[in-house]
């Protein structure tokens, strides 16, 4: 279970990740005329951050004796799935990028 202080650091990191993604969206989206990869990444990151914030709020409410333990468990497991999916997609994309970069020209 993420403690609030660790979680706060993690969200700050995710929020910092969102900003370069905005820059990336501007660069990559120009002339493409569709949803760019940067846009998609930005959306995914913000939804993951949002879910993390929700589960953290539930955890804090439970520690304050206001929320149900069952709500905390479902919220945390939802966030866990969202973060794992995001990390897996990121790893795949970076792997593909490195494959292209190491291509002999």
């Amino acid at each position: 279970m993420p403690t609030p202080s660790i979680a706060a650091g993690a969200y700050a990191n995710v929020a910092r990740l969102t900003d370069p993604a905005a820059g990336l969206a501007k660069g990559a989206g120009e002339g493409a005329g569709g949803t760019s990869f940067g846009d998609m990444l930005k959306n995914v990151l913000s939804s993951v951050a949002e879910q993390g914030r929700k589960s953290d709020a539930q955890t804090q409410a439970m520690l304050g004796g206001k929320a149900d333990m069952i709500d905390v468990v479902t919220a945390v497991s939802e966030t866990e799935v969202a973060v794992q999916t995001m990390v897996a997609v990121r790893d795949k994309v970076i792997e593909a990028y490195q494959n292209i970069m190491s291509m002999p020209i």
Partner: protein
Amino acid sequence: MDLMKSIAIAASGLRAQSGRMQVISENIANADSTAQAAGGDPYRRQVATFQSAMDNALGARVVKLGPVRTDPSDFQVKNEPGHPAADANGNVHYPNVNPLIEMTDMRDAQRSYSANLNVINATRTMIQRTLDILKS
């Protein structure tokens, strides 16, 4: 995602069974609660009911704890003339709580809770296995 939905549905089962557990613990705790005044009625056993409800946000039928009803069966009568709640004949009405029935109900609630937990665990495993494809 459908798998997250089934986790939420199983969570509604957990919530309902924990509510039932609360009713059972009230019954067991009040098994000896007699009336305050002489000849009055003691604690009456409560029964939890379940009902299926449509969760519009989730788009699925979840289980909810229905109204908690009272058990209309007869009270136990014991002859204790010295008891403050005894009537003119020395009889005291004790609650219609049978510890054996409560124990069986409790075991039932426990098993249902475990079954819902198993659904959550199995669903989590399915999600993880699917994600493993993306990772490899």
